[in-house]
């Protein structure tokens, strides 16, 4: 059943309003795409939001980046975690999902798994681990938005569908758009790199653009959903990776989940 009340433009409009309440996060998202922006510039902007700066410092000093306790300046923290990561953390803040109570119960657990799995898989898809990690971390943004718009309906939808493609189909049927696509719309609005937007937009279909995220969703499903019916990694990625690489990827993801969970204060 399609919900007539979900207006995607309205959802995106609400993000614009949110941006005005989080000016620092909005500036970071707006400026970190620019190649001419340096770590010093980004750190200067970040320094105006203590909560955001603390998150970046905590992440830079986490086991995920292997420099526990060594990063003492915000500028250095920005270079350690990378601009894309800073932007992703700002985006989480911008979207209002960092402290939102109205999120699905397993929202962050799933997001951290997606982030870790994407980070692990990234180098196999010619993506840097950090960029891929950011992609995974933000992929669920659409879920948060759908849940905020239709908490009961979305709760029912998740209760009756398995994580991954099955849910994407149900989301599209109900809202006319699936959650990664909605994320893509939001990120496009914030002028994220087009490759990142394309990857999210293509995750529920075939083709190379969404292959990394499809594999990350599959790895995440295997880790968080005991009843998940496996789809081979080869078929999801046009054989860019295959099932023989699954055990190592699962192990590495599991380890990074622990580090990221602590790093992000979840």
């Amino acid at each position, binding site marked *: 059943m399609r919900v007539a009340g979900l207006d995607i433009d309205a959802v995106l409009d609400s993000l614009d309003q949110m941006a005005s309440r989080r000016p620092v996060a909005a500036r970071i998202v707006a400026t970190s795409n620019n190649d001419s922006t340096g770590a010093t510039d980004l750190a200067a902007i970040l320094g105006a939001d203590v909560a955001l700066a603390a998150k970046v410092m905590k992440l830079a000093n986490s086991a995920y980046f292997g420099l526990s306790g060594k990063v003492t300046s915000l500028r250095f923290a920005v270079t350690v975690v990378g601009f894309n990561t800073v932007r992703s953390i700002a985006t989480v803040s911008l979207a209002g999902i960092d402290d939102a109570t109205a999120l699905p119960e397993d929202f962050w657990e799933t997001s951290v798994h997606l982030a870790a799995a994407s980070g692990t898989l990234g180098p196999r898809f010619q993506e840097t681990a950090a960029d891929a990690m950011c992609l995974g971390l933000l992929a669920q943004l659409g879920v948060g938005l759908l849940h905020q718009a239709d908490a009961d309906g979305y709760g029912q939808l998740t209760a009756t569908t398995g994580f991954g493609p099955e849910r994407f189909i149900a989301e599209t049927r109900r809202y006319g758009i699936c959650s990664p696509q909605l994320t893509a719309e939001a990120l496009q609005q914030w002028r994220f790199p087009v490759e990142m937007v394309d990857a999210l937009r*293509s995750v529920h279909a075939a083709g190379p653009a969404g292959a990394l995220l499809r594999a990350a969703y599959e790895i995440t499903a295997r880790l968080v959903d005991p009843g998940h019916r496996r789809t081979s990694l080869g078929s999801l990625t046009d054989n860019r990776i295959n099932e023989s690489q699954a055990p190592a990827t699962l192990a590495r993801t599991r380890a990074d989940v622990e580090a990221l969970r602590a790093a992000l204060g979840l």
Partner: protein
Amino acid sequence: MSAVAASSVDDADRRSPQREPRDVVAAVLHAATADAEVALMVTDFSDAVEPIIRWSNLGATELLGRASSDLDGERLADFMQPPDKASLATIFRRERPTTTLVTVRTAVGETVACRLIAIPAPDGCLWTLRVHPAQSDLELALRASADAHEHRFKVLAERSPVPTMMSEQGMRLGHVNDALCALLGVTADKLIGTGWMAYIHGEDLERMTDTVVAVLAGQEREMQARFVDSQRRVRYTDMRFTPLHTPGVGDGFVATMEDITDRRALEEQLNFQATHDSLTGLPRRGKLWDHITAAMEDPQAGLTCMFLDLDNFKLVNDSLGHKAGDTLLVEIAHRLSGSVRPGDLVARFGGDEFVVVCGTGSLDTALEVADRILRVLSDPVMLGGVEIHPRASIGVVLRSPDHHSADDLIRDCDIAMYQAKARGRGRVMVLDEGARSAVYDTLTLVSDLRQALEERRITLCYQPIVCYEGTHPQLASVEALARWQHPDRGTIPASVFVRLAEEHGLVRELGELVLDIACAAMAAWQPQLGALAPPQVNVNLSALQMNDHLLVQTVKRTLRRHGLRPEQLCLEITESALMNDPATASIILGQLRDHGVLVAIDDFGTGYSSLAYLRRLPVHYLKVDRSFVAELQDGHTAVAQAVISLARSLELGVVAEGVETVAQMQMLERMGCSLVQGFGISQPLAGPDLVDWCRSGLPTPQVDAP
């Protein structure tokens, strides 16, 4: 312009809030219509359930391969679809432009991946679509070039025999090459991300992190680091880090590594060989010094040093052979190493000497260790079928504020060990302050003696040897006697400083100095005294000089330097010194005699001369020991008579020493010994006094008649 386009312009003109001038709108539309570079379409999504094409430009007709008239009124979905084959409806937003990926189907059935940007018109019914290939030809070419470039670089890095890692952010690795995987014996999966950190040696992790922090801050760094491979083996590497900055992304690094495990192992082996005794495997002196010096850096650290010397080791070596001696040393080293506590050091000092360094300031603890060592050492050892019970003497010293260096500590425990030896061997002695003072005193005196020799402050006295044959006594020779007037301690007896010279390796310097002064005096007397001058000078040789193969050269050189004839010099050597090594002595004395130098055996009769040797030894004189001369007046004439008779029968000259009375002179004369020396003729005289004495007609002192 087509009718549809004209209609659109009218609509735009009517609805645009800005109301652009009609001629401007017409100009823009004209340009857009004729633009072949960009595909533009206008679609209507107001009444239909799906978007319908209302207008298209030249770029669109070229992209789709259809005439503009063929596109108008057609469903957009007939020409393009999103990748998921979902509806295109989601891209048509009322208020914001959207971008999506679509697959465009051309008239010839070809599919082209394109990016579709939908821009809503203000009325909310029309959308302008801009369609362009997802990647232009230039982009594709650049991408292909970049891909090829990256591929080449990747192949180079991956196939390089140099282990290489690349971090994209922080310590997280994005890439590792095959050589690094081979070095650590794991697949790349285990190393990327922070996985590689699990293979860094625990003690190097902190340093590695600090280095990476510096590199991420832009510095180039090098470091040595240990890794633990999949077989738990430690691999030593030299690492070189280079910062890797990606604008707009962040900072990482590239590190190359050189596996220096084998080289290091070789260096360690060479270092071990240089610092450890090859026989026992124990550290040698250098290592011992380093260990003590390092321990002494902490003034509060307890430190005890033990000097251990095996008792009667020479006996084992001499009786069972050096191989058995070596076996014993190895066994002792093994037992010592097993007797000390963890952290203590056992070193081989040299020969049968070992030093144990304990990190304790407790005398009780140190003595426990020393007693345990004595107990363990005394267990029997079978050497060549003989059961040996090794024993050792151990000197113990606790570090005190007086000890400023390893030298101080070793010296004191050496002293303590000698005390242990002196008190009966097989025991442990803690350093006694009195003994230490005595040793210090001796060492100071030796130092003064060395200085006196350098400054030629050793002087000579000369005691005449007179021949009483015939009516007038004749001066036959003078015996040079060394004297040392210490600036603080006064006269040091010759017996003392000669012994010190012998014990501390100064005997050659002393001997050469005495020979030189005596020859110089001899040369000086000739012009001063003429016929009254001593025809010969006697110089004493130390027993140790009889092992000096350079002695003959030294004597020849000295005689030549002073213009003396060889027969003007007579070298005196004690009977016991001769018998230490008669074969060598015979060779050296033979060479001296061949040169013409005279040789006398001093203190004859006090040793254990082999008469067979004596007959063969190239000597010219025997000197009857003063003890035999002294007993003449008591009626004990047999020994003196025997020596004199022996000399006569061997056709050697004979000189009686220690003659003090006229009676002794008369008795010796009756026995056939006319060459005499002693206080009865003259006490030893300083050089100028001797000249006066010669000029005065060789006056004898007033001596008491017996």
